[in-house]
């Protein structure tokens, strides 16, 4: 169950059942009530004092003055000893009725029993030609027994009724139905087993009642009861099937519709409850779905109300008709009229009761919302609960609705809104039962988002403002505040809070954690003494506690943090930790493994660093002790120390590598060790190790956010692997080899020169030096060539790795990282191309743009992926980008056009859609780019390229003179903050659209805003100035317009698109509006003198204008 708080639901259920009971159409009064009055006796003869007395009694009954009626009947009874038995029976029956209305069950019981015993023929035909009222009296007696909880008497009587062959069929059916109810009522105070047994008996009785079909109202009534019993027994299928049969056989009267409706709700409730209790999720889902269908089929308040109203109207119409047709009613007619009047009153009561209950609709929405929440349809649940706030704000269970609404908001990711609702809830319903849970949710949302200060604020607000918070919640909030302080590195505050917490909640569920955290606070403050005390306390109290692994790890850190550090002890503790926990599957411990390895590495580094001083001293001794034996001793000492240091360094590296390899689930530790290894391994020339490690990490998850970084490291290390240390060693060996020879040869030359040796000898000596130098150079060149070849091979290998990574995702349109890799690859290849000066020809074996293109084709494995649309598109994109890096716009255009001409939007990734679409739009080709932008708008509205969609489409609409649409797009982008890198463009389109729709003031504001934004200085600034001028011109202010035009072409002449327009605009205004033809000519002359402008369409227009001047 999504929702743990079924308490609210249960309350809701109770309330709706109350509604149900209130509106069940008790469309009639009791048989006893409806029993016709002996009006005939009252009217004939009118002068008879007994008849007068009887009439008086009946009139009092009509007016519900039962005490008076009883008095009259008792008086009549005294005088009626001589009357025939049937009339005595009438009086007895009436008396029983009065007792019934007075709810004097004991007297009613006695009187009815007396009536049934004394008058075997009942009222004979006096009250009804076909009914002597014995059946009615017996049924009423059952009610009287029931009201006195005389269940056995009631059942006994009902059994008599059921088996009596003389009883009317309808009464027999009613007897069955009533028996079932009595059986249920009897078991009400019994055990669950008794109740279930009673329900089983009720099913048996009701089945007998419905065995003859559902053709009569009595049978349908029994059927409806059976539906209810089935529902209670959880036999929902049977209930629904029978209900469908009853509905089909029903008259469709408003009363039946209403009742059927409430049965539907009951069936829904039964299903919901079964769903709550089901063990399997599949069963739960099915039951919730069924419950939802039942609730969705329930009528709404307005409909129920209309049905009840209609029922009242129909009954009233029947009554009016009867009254109208019987201006002078016969006794029979009077009886009918009275019965009809009673019905109308009864319906009106139901109507009034229903009208009083305003919660009906809200309860339906509430239940639908609960089902949807359980069915993991949070958006629809959100709509259902929102309906309550919008349409039934006064709902009595609105606090429950708020709570579930908040849950729905959380499910759909609307956390800010959920928090606002939490606050609203806590302020509005401080006494609601959900208040504690909501108070926690309020802060929890911020805490989950790692906004700890805000979370603490919310928790404190809840503590201060929520009056009815239970102790458990208060404790939870206190602890959550501590966690927030802790996460927010407020160590002092956290520790103080922990002390308070431990003092205040001594039996807290979080006592162990609090003890541990308290020590951690000291730890993070670097107060190791207190930390050790704290951890010792924890270890003593919880030797097998949840945090023991961490505590032992931190104890090791404490040893390492002492001054001087106890490194050996640290290493011992770490090794013991690994021995005890390295194989653990516990997530927290697994996360800690890299940290322990890191600590070992740090300790080893420390040991290595500690040797530096001794090594330096040994070195100094070597240098300062000329005596060979001492020198040799110190040299040996130095070598030993260096070896020892190397040993520690190697161990440290091994430990860091182990940390990295176990750091998959601990990104912080991983980042740290990778940084440390980045300092150590490349300096030692261990590029291969570096590469292998990064490769392993990259392969963990290629879709990881950091995967690209790891890949870059793989490539970097691979490239570096080319420059192997052996090349340096070889070069050094060569240098060494020749240095002695060269020194000897040079010495010989010097000696010959000094001794004025023969020139031939000097020359020969010099030649020998030159020869040696040449040999040295040649040998070094061999080494260098080998090095270069190795570097090239490594770079090739790196490109291969990159290519492999791209190829892996090139077929998957949704892998957005693919384009990033392509850009990286294109940039790398572009760098390989040697730039040539204009006119120069490349060497035949030079790596040219064509070579780069070939290589990128090969590296992207386009040939292998020729059947993949997206791979081919990415190939064109890569070549286009390569051309862009090589500053070849024509080629970029060529490849981007290929994409635009051949690919549908849905075949491309958002990056390509945006970049190619933008490129095509800049070239004025809107046909395909429009589709691309449209696709971004529809499918990638939350991507980092969403703004390209809005900006591009708005620009196109502006070009199509659909200014309103362009404005709407801009407004939508700005309102929803979808502007990102295209904000300038979107605002510029908006300003122009405003200008085009003559909203000059707004447009001016917008243009000025863009123009004054420093970051946007450039072509758009020129465009804004031009447009400001154009707007002035359109508003008939030529001088002001010229001012803007002038600023445009003077300040931004390099943007010929705008400066050409501005020149032309200024010249035209000078010539036509300002009557300054000379000035116009000068402007045109200046314009045409500009190389960038003279061939523009505006220049041609200016020439024509100039000719006319």
């Amino acid at each position: 169950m999504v929702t743990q708080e079924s308490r609210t639901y249960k309350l809701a259920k109770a309330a709706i059942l109350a509604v149900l009971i209130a509106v069940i159409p008790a469309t009639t009064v009791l048989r006893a009530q409806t029993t016709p009055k002996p009006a005939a006796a009252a009217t004939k003869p009118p002068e008879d004092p007994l008849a007068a007395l009887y009439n008086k009694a009946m009139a009092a009954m009509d007016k519900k003055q039962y005490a008076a009626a009883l008095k009259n009947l008792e008086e009549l009874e005294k005088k009626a000893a001589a009357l025939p038995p049937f009339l005595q029976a009438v009086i007895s029956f009436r008396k029983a009725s009065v007792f019934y209305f007075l709810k004097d069950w004991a007297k009613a019981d006695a009187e009815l029993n007396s009536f049934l015993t004394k008058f075997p023929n009942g009222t004979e035909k006096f009250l009804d030609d076909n009914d002597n009222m014995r059946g009615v009296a017996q049924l009423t007696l059952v009610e009287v027994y029931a009201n006195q909880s005389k269940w056995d008497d009631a059942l006994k009587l009902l059994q008599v009724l059921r088996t009596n062959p003389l009883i009317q069929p309808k009464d027999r059916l009613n007897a069955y139905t009533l028996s079932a109810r009595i059986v249920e009522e009897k078991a009400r105070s019994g055990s669950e087993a008794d109740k279930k047994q009673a329900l089983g008996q009720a099913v048996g009785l009701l089945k007998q009642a419905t065995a003859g079909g559902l053709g009569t109202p009595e049978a349908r009534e029994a059927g409806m009861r059976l539906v209810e019993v089935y529902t209670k027994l959880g036999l929902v299928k049977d209930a629904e099937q029978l209900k469908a049969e009853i509905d089909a056989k029903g008259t469709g009267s408003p009363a039946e519709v209403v009742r059927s409706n409430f049965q539907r709700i009951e069936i829904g409730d039964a299903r919901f409850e079964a769903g709550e209790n089901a063990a399997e999720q599949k069963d739960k889902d099915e039951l919730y779905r069924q419950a939802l269908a039942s609730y969705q089929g329930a009528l709404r308040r307005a409909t129920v109300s209309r049905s009840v109203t209609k029922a009242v109207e129909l009954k009233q119409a029947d009554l009016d008709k009867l009254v109208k047709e019987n201006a002078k009613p016969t006794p029979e007619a009077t009886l009918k009229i009275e019965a009809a009047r009673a019905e109308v009153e009864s319906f009106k009561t139901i109507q009034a009761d229903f009208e009083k209950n305003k919660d009906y609709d809200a309860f339906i929405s509430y239940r639908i919302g609960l089902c949807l929440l359980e069915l993991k349809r949070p958006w629809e649940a959100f709509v259902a609960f929102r309906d309550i706030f919008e349409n039934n704000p006064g709902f009595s269970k609105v606090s429950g609705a708020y709570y579930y609404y908040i849950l729905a908001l959380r499910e759909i990711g609307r956390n800010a809104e959920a928090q606002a609702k939490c606050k609203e809830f806590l302020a509005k319903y401080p006494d609601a039962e959900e208040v504690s849970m909501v108070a926690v949710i309020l802060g929890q949302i911020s805490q989950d988002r790692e906004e700890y200060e805000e979370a603490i604020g919310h928790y404190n607000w809840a503590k201060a403002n929520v009056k009815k918070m239970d102790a458990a919640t208060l404790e939870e909030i206190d602890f959550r505040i501590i966690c927030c302080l802790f996460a927010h590195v407020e160590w002092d505050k956290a520790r103080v809070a922990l002390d308070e917490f431990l003092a205040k909640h001594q039996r807290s569920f979080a006592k162990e954690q609090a003890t541990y955290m308290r020590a951690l606070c000291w730890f993070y403050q670097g107060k190791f003494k207190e930390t050790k005390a704290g951890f010792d306390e924890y270890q003593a109290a919880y030797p097998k506690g949840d945090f023991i692994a961490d505590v032992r790890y931190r104890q090791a850190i404490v040893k390492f943090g002492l001054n001087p550090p106890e490194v050996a002890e640290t290493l011992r503790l770490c090794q013991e930790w690994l021995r005890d926990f390295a194989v653990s599957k516990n997530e927290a411990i697994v996360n800690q493994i890299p940290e322990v390895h890191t600590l070992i590495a740090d300790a080893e580094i420390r040991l290595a660093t500690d040797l530096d001083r001794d090594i330096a001293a040994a070195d100094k001794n070597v240098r300062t002790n000329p005596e060979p034996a001492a020198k040799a001793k110190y040299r040996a000492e130095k070598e030993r120390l260096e070896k020892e240091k190397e040993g520690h360094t190697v161990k440290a590296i091994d430990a860091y590598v182990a940390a990295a390899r176990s750091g998959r689930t601990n990104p912080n530790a991983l980042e740290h060790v990778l940084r440390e290894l980045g300092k150590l391994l490349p300096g030692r020339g261990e590029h291969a190790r570096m590469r292998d490690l990064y490769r392993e990490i990259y392969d963990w998850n290629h879709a990881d956010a950091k995967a690209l970084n790891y890949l870059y490291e793989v490539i970097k290390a691979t490239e570096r692997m080319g420059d192997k240390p052996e090349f340096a060693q070889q070069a050094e060996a060569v240098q060494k080899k020749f240095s002695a020879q060269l020194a000897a040869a040079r010495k010989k030359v010097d000696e010959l020169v000094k001794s004025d040796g023969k020139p031939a000898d000097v020359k020969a000596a010099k030649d020998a030096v030159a020869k040696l130098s040449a040999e040295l150079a040649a040998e070094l060149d061999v080494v260098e060539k080998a090095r270069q070849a190795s570097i090239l091979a490594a770079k090739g290998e790196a490109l291969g790795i990159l290519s492999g990574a791209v190829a892996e995702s090139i077929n998957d349109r949704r892998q957005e990282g693919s384009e990033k890799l392509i850009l990286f690859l294109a940039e790398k290849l572009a760098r390989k191309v040697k730039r040539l000066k204009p006119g120069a020809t490349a060497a035949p074996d030079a790596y040219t743009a064509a070579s780069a293109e070939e290589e990128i084709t090969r590296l992207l494995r386009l040939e292998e992926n020729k059947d993949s649309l997206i791979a081919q598109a990415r190939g064109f994109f890569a070549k286009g980008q390569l051309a862009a890096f090589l500053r070849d716009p024509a080629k970029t255009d060529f490849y981007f056009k290929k994409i635009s001409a051949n690919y549908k939007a849905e075949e491309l990734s958002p990056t390509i859609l945006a970049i190619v679409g933008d490129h095509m739009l800049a070239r004025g080709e809107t046909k395909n780019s429009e589709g691309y932008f449209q696709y971004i708008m529809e499918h990638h509205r939350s991507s980092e390229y969403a703004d390209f969609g809005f900006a591009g489409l708005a620009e196109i609409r502006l070009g199509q003179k659909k200014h309103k649409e362009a404005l709407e797009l801009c407004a939508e982008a700005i309102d929803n903050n979808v502007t990102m890198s295209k904000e300038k463009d979107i605002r510029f389109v908006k300003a122009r659209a405003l200008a085009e729709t003559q909203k000059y003031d707004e447009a001016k504001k917008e243009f000025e805003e863009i123009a004054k934004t420093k970051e946007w200085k450039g072509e758009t600034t020129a465009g804004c100035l031009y447009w400001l001028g154009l707007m002035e011109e359109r508003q008939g202010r030529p001088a002001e317009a010229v001012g803007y035009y002038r600023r445009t072409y003077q300040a931004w002449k390099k943007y010929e698109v705008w400066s050409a327009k501005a020149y032309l605009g200024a010249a035209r205004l000078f010539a036509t509006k300002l009557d300054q033809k000379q000035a116009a000519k000068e402007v045109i002359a200046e314009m045409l003198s500009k190389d960038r402008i003279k061939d523009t369409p505006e220049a041609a227009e200016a020439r024509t204008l100039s000719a006319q001047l």
Partner: protein
Amino acid sequence: MRPAVRTLLTAALLGAAAHSFGQALIFKGGERWEVNDPFKMDTSVPPKPLIDPKKGTISSIKGTVVRTVNAGGTDIESTRKLSEVERIIWPNSERLAEAQLFVSRGEPAKALDSVEPIIKFFDAFKKTPGSLWLKASMVKLDALDRLENDAAIGSFLDNLEKNDDGSNPELANKIKLARLMQRARRGEHDAVIADATELIGKLDDLDVLARLHLVKAGSLLATKKYEAAMNTYLRIPVFYGSQAEHLPKAMLGAARAFRGMDTPATREQKLEEVSNRYLRDLIATFPVSKEAEEAKKLLPKEDRLAAEADAAKIKDAAVLPDAPAKPDAPKADGANNNDANK
């Protein structure tokens, strides 16, 4: 008195039961004639209407119903006027269901072919309770709406309005709804939103309410009020889930609204994915509806291919009908509460 007892006795006051087994006419005075369904055909080629000689045969043109009864070995033919019919009991016509299916599949012309004869047949007693005339007229309106033929809709509505003498509030409401749909198509969105909101508060016919929500939501979407549009579209599966024929439009509209709500600021809500989920559900649940076709266009290519594959599997299995049979909404006045609604 205890509710238990009171409840039991309530039934005694309810009216007499109506026995109904097929299509039947109830005349004034309660006489009931079983009648043949003129739209039920046999398997001959060309198919002929299935006639049961014991049942009455309706002639809409003459405005009569004729029945032959064998009394004492003699066949006696009796004729009664359709104007004397007080109530009609007519199980949902297969032909009408077929027309509805054509509408939802986006084949409005075929829908019109199916529905026109029903409208003509019931024209003679269109206002009699239980008549399928209004229901059929609504299907016709849907078909015309799909055709986007404003002129035809206008003329049909004019005709409907002529028939609206105020005696049938259901007809009046449906005309109002159709007029709103017309106005929405003309782009009068703000007015449509206001009027639809007002009408929603007044009506209780689930079908009309679901339609009104669709119209209102459509206008909200057109005016880029995405959140409100989503909220309105989703009210249909939430509160009118029994109105299955409106679910495809609602799901498609909600998916579009979610797309509109999707911005970088709401990225956490993964609205594109929410939208796609509704589209996939739509394709899976109503695979041959017109909206499913639209949904496929809206889905990203990969999702569309997957959804099509799923739909094909379902089709191969041939276990699911296109749209679940729509149970009649419970009517307050009980007009449809007969055997047909089983």
